[in-house]
Structures are given as structure tokens and as C-alpha cells.
């Protein structure tokens, strides 16, 4: 667009800026947002792995053993370490966002955000504790 513009008084020639492909690097919060969105890929992959483990359990003890052996491979361990990191990031940012979506009113007053986020964290700790107790007992 280097040719001089033809200007008509009642139909101004607007200029529209294009959004850069790198818009998500412009500010820290944009980057955090895009990373949070990308974590969902790892959450989905982890869910698929879990389904695969359950499926092989249903195929009999040999299939399950084979599955466990594959899970012990360095590549698989690396994936799980990365997935754990991303899922934690996903969960924490999600819990921090929860008070925005859930407005809890008690006696006409809005409960502070800390209560809603706190309830989410508490539920997380309790459920994780329950799962840990179950696994450690067996």
C-alpha cells in the first residue's frame, strides 16, 4: 500500500492494522494465557494414556504388564514429568480464575475471591489425599 491514497470527504479511508503473528509475545499475561491454552494438549494426552492403561488392564495380566513396561521407558517418564508440570500449571491458573466465574453471595454480600479459590484448593488437597491414601494402602 504505497500508492497515495484517494481521499473522499464522506468516506474516509480507514487504516486497519494487522495483528502480528507474535502478538502473544507482546506482554507477559498474553504469553501466560497462550501457555495455559497449550497445557490442555498435555491434559488431553495424559487422559489418552490413562485410557490406554485402563484398556490394557481389561485385556488381561500379560497386556497390562506390557503396558507397565512401556510406561517405564525414559521417553514415557519424560512425558509424564512434563505433563505433571503442565497439569499443575493448568490447575493452579484455573483455580485462581474460579472466583471470577462463580459469584457466591451470602446474606446479600459477595464472598471474597479468596474463599472461592480456597474452597477449590481445599477440595484439591482432600481429593489428592484420598487418592494417595488409597494407593499407599494397597
Amino acid at each position, binding site marked *: *500500500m*504505497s*500508492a*497515495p*491514497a484517494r*481521499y473522499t470527504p464522506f468516506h*474516509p*479511508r*480507514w*487504516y*486497519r*492494522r494487522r*495483528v502480528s503473528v507474535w*502478538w*502473544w509475545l*507482546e*506482554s507477559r*499475561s*498474553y504469553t501466560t*494465557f497462550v501457555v495455559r*491454552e497449550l497445557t490442555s494438549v498435555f491434559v488431553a494426552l495424559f487422559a489418552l494414556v490413562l485410557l490406554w492403561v485402563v484398556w490394557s488392564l481389561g485385556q488381561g495380566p500379560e497386556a497390562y504388564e506390557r503396558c507397565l513396561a512401556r510406561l517405564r521407558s525414559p521417553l514415557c517418564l519424560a512425558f509424564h514429568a512434563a505433563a505433571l508440570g503442565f497439569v499443575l500449571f493448568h490447575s493452579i491458573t484455573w483455580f485462581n*480464575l474460579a472466583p*471470577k*466465574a*462463580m*459469584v457466591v*453471595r451470602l446474606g*446479600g454480600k459477595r464472598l471474597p475471591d479468596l474463599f472461592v479459590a480456597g474452597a477449590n484448593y481445599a477440595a484439591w488437597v482432600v481429593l489428592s489425599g484420598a487418592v494417595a491414601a488409597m494407593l499407599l494402602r494397597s
Partner: protein
Amino acid sequence: MPETVTLAVARYRPETESEPTVQTYEVPFRKDWVVLDALNYIKDRLDGSLSFRWSCRMGVCGSCGMTVNGQPRLTCAAFLSAEPPGPIRVEPLRYFPIVRDLVVDITDFVRKLKKVKPWIVREVDKPVAEGEYLQTPDQLDAYKQFSMCINCLLCYSACPIYGLEPSFIGPAAIALAQRYNGDSRDEGSAERLRILSEHDGMWQCTFVGECTKACPKHVDPAGAIQQYKLQSATHWFKTLLPWGGR
């Protein structure tokens, strides 16, 4: 304290230029001056051809929104002394078509705002003789925050989704829809839910959260959108129940 400050102002003169350029101006540095004061100084003393919108100078009219040092701000609330040293970059609001210099075209927003019916919708209007619709302070409190919106459009300018998908109905329009949904006198929430559940409605929002940070009136549009999503999802689940009517 420095005696002057440099403003790097975006210019766009469609009759001579095919794209925006930057022009720098030296203006006196005063502690009590905001960017809008500096722009008015330029307009009065240095260059009368500079175009920008403003009106009230006190954060009520919502006309003077611009991009100051990369952030969407009301220029009447952006103090020169609070900006980092060096030239202060003043550009038009992002994502809107630029008409001239710092003036953007906001027709798109006005059209979208009208779409969400930001007024009290009643199935049957009460005759005037029956008196006003009464409301308790708690009922007022339920929507008051969202009613503070001044349509300054800083939230649109902060929203990368609006930049990438200009058809997105946007933060302020949804917050204002929620303002009327939360009003005990209103009966139009089902109608608004239908409009906002369309492809370009609330589900385009992926909760970047920048609209809330940019809002000069603490409206929290991001919160309004997420609350709307929750209500919409609850409504949808209810329609799945055998006793839930569609």
C-alpha cells in the same frame, strides 16, 4: 525534574498518507498534567492539525481512550509523571480502524452493543399509574458494578481475541448484557442468552483476562463473561433433564 517531555504521537492523514507515521512533540512537563493535557497543548500551541477525541477530562465520558506506551488507557487519567522516562508513545486504540490520527471508528461496537438489548426488557410494561419498579439495595448491588461501564472501549483494545476475530461481540457488550440480566426489573435474560450463545458470542472468549485489567471503572468484564458462561452451561444442563423444558 525535567522541563519538557517528548510525546511520540501516531499520525494518520488519509488524504496524504497510506499508513500511520510517528510525529514527535516537545511539551512542558508538569506534575499535574495527564497525557490529554499534553495533547491539548500540542493542539493549541504546536500543531492544530492533530486530531483526537476527548470531552470530560475526568474519566466519565469514555472518549479519550488511546494506547499510551503500548497500554490501552484513558488519557485523562494517564499522568505524564507516572510514565517511564523517555518519549511517551501515544497511539490510537488497537484493533479499531483508524479514521485519522488518534481517532478510531467505533461503529462496530455500537452495532454489537445494540444487539444485546442493553435496556430493561419487560414482557408487559407496567402502566405508569401503578408506580415505579422497586428495588432493594441488595438487588441494586447485584448489577451495580457492571453498570459503571462508560463504553470507553479499552477492554476491546486489550482483548487479543477481538483483534484476531473481529466478529467477537466483545467484553463491554457482554458485561452490559449481564448488567441487565442481573437487574431485578428486567425480563430479557432468555433473549440475551440466545443472542450471546451464537458463534460470535460469549464462547469466543478464552479468558485472557486483560479486559478486566484495562477497565478504568473496575467493571470486570472478564468476570461478567465467565459468570455468563456458567449460567449458560447450567441452563443447557437443565434442558437435558426430563423435567427441564427446552
